[in-house]
């Protein structure tokens, strides 16, 4: 073979290698993105469960807390907003704005729920209601599941964001429009009380 052919072959090999390299980075990013999107589905299921429980809770509480109409309405309103925000977020968990919207709505909902439970302290009959006890127990369990699923989601988002930023992946990510994903965090002014269960 002549020198020309050899040089050509070498150049070709380098090009092929380069393409492979880029493709493998691209695939890795896709894989990581799918992973966090799948992780969001777990949150989605639990949040839906939570949104389904809340109207029942309010319904039960309504009979006892006649004078706390405002608080009850605030919970329902926050629940509806959160439910809408979640629909948006679950359509595209990679959309940072949608996730931020959900974060805001969730924080608000958790806040109003906390207030409702604080008010409920003043109604011993309500606290003793079996339905209420069951609902709040289930709500606590669901919240535990949400926070666990959130942690898994955030880990996956973190892995994606890191992979997106390191060299040389950042060039590939930039070229193919891999946007930074948003962590899902809930900030509530009052620290939530850890659930107390004794055995």
């Amino acid at each position, binding site marked *: *073979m*002549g020198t020309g052919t050899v040089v050509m072959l070498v150049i070709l090999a380098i090009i092929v290698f380069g393409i492979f390299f880029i493709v493998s980075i691209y695939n890795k990013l*896709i894989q990581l993105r799918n992973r966090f999107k*799948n992780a969001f*589905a777990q949150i989605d299921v639990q949040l839906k469960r939570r949104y389904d429980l809340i109207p029942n809770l309010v319904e039960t509480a309504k009979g006892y807390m006649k004078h706390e109409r405002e608080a009850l309405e605030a919970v329902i309103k926050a629940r509806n907003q959160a439910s809408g925000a979640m629909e948006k977020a679950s359509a595209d968990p990679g959309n940072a704005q949608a996730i931020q919207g959900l974060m805001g709505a969730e924080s608000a909902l958790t806040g109003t729920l906390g207030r409702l439970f604080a008010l409920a302290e003043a109604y011993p009959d309500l606290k003793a209601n079996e339905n209420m006890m069951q609902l709040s127990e289930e709500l606590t369990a669901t919240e535990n*599941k949400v926070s666990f699923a959130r942690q*898994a989601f955030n*880990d*996956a988002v973190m892995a994606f964001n890191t992979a997106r930023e390191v060299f040389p992946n950042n060039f590939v990510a930039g070229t193919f429009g891999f946007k930074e994903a948003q962590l899902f965090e809930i900030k509530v002014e009052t620290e939530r009380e850890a659930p107390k269960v004794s*055995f």
Partner: protein
Amino acid sequence: MDFFASQDAARKKTSLLLFYFALAVFFIIVAIYLAVAFFFVYQGSKTGQLSPTPIWDFELFGSISAVTLLVVICGSLYKISILRSGGARVAEMLGGKLIPVSTNNFLEKRFLNIVEEMAIASGVPVPPVYLMEIEKGINAFAAGFRPDDAVIGITRGSLETLNRDELQGVVAHEFSHILNGDMWLDLKLVGFLHGILLIALIGRSILRGSSRSRNSKNSGGAALFGLVLVLLGYIGVLFGKLIKSAVSRQREYLADASAVQFTRNPHGLAGALKKIGGLAAGSLVDHSKAEEISHMFFSNGLKASWIGLFSTHPPLADRITRLEPAFNGNYPKVLRSQVHEPDEERIDKAKSRVKVKQPFEQMPKGAAVIALAILASDPKNITRDIGTPLREHMEYARQLLDSLPTQVREAASDPFGARAVIYGLLLDPDEAVRSQQVEQLKNAADQAVFEATKSIFPLMLSLEEEMRLPLMDLAMPSLRSLSLDQFRRFEENISSLVRIDKRVSLFEFTLQHVIVRRLERNFITPPRSITEIDSIRDVAEEISCILSLLANLGHESVEASLAFSGAAATFNRPGSTLHYMNREECKDIRLADILNRLANLSPKVKQSLITACFQCLVHDKQITMKEAEFFRLLVYALDTPLPPWVKI
């Protein structure tokens, strides 16, 4: 055909396919060479000087074959590497979304239940299920490289249109693809085809490039060259597809037949096929990537091809007639709005309520189960059972699932509670050890998981011993959704629970080994090329260890050595290479390393190893729970789908 034979046949078929494709590539190279040589002659005649190249130029031929081979091999390797990385990638490529195990949607939940039953009945890990949300047709697929990274995909149309029996038929069909080694074949088929396709793709981009720069001198020649590449590439692909379709059609008949064998209900599968015929959307999958894996589907995912030769699936009517010879060729019209059966949920629920009331004691328990199974089957036929779950296994699986306390089952199908289930399995029946473990969990594990463990542990005390491993299997899909950090912490907790009493029981070892091995694959891609070990001599040391351990588990001193030699004698060349180790020596065995190495055995060697182990197991006509569990561990580690033992 038994499991090992079909796994082996799939590999053999791969080498035959490889040969065909090599032949195709060779012809393509020759054709490209002729085209290039012709091009030079043409170029020479145009410029007036005579061609300097004789018609047979080895140098030119050499470089052309080098380039072509490079392209084809790169293309194949690339595609194979993508498919190899697990079924999840394929499912995601097709726009599938993972169904969360904790889903509240009835249709999704029912499908997951069917998949769980089938998985437990056939002894493969419960595969994750992906839903193709926007597909209206009835279709499904199985993808993945090995049974333990397989996934099942299903269209929304199937969930809404099919009833439970029909879905079970579809799932059984997909499972038999997994068990027949079809996924291995698929992988190679798609990979080889892609290599040849790449030639056509390169030709196309040359063609496009040259049409853009019309005024350059060589563009005419380049365009011609591009055209030749496109033509050759597509002709190659055409032949490749012929091979692919022919192979695929045979595998479909086989899968249908095995599905009926599993469910013993041809009408379920036939019903699903009939609904495909009667539904306007049929079995179409409307995704641009659907063509690539068309042969993995349950039924034709593409528009009917103009000739049957290119169809990856046999004609519907043909498949139905094989299942129901009386089929008259009429498909009752199915409208999607009619098909949703709201009553079914109630029936399903009612059924399970009745089932729970049936005492599980009707099933023979523990060691009794196994003893009965042995009376029924000749020891040498043990491998016949592998990969062929029967109706009995399916019923057993369903009864087993139904007999689980609801709370435990719910916990297992949720990533949060699944950890509690595993911790609960590891808690020692001994009070003193358990309190230490509880203390440990309290400090190291998540507070809420700790509470959950506490609340379900009392329920788990009542579980039969033989239900512990299926319960672990059940928890697996939800554990897969742990993130890496969560998995690490989980792994640490398991290991400290196991080690707290300074000794590792067989069950604890099994649980830890299987969980870690399966979940690790989520995060770490397995090593690139695992060469299969094809000779017993290469693993004589490992096999000696396994057989000696097994012999000592179930037998006393002299009997143990007799059991060992009985087992060793089942190998074709009774090995002077195998040596017996007594109980003391067995203590130094590093089981985890051995199991990892044995996982790389070829199907044939696995088969003889399992036969030998089973011979050892039944030496004294008695199988203890420990022996049975060790045998389970072994089949888990060998990725071998052994159905649960039931009386047949």
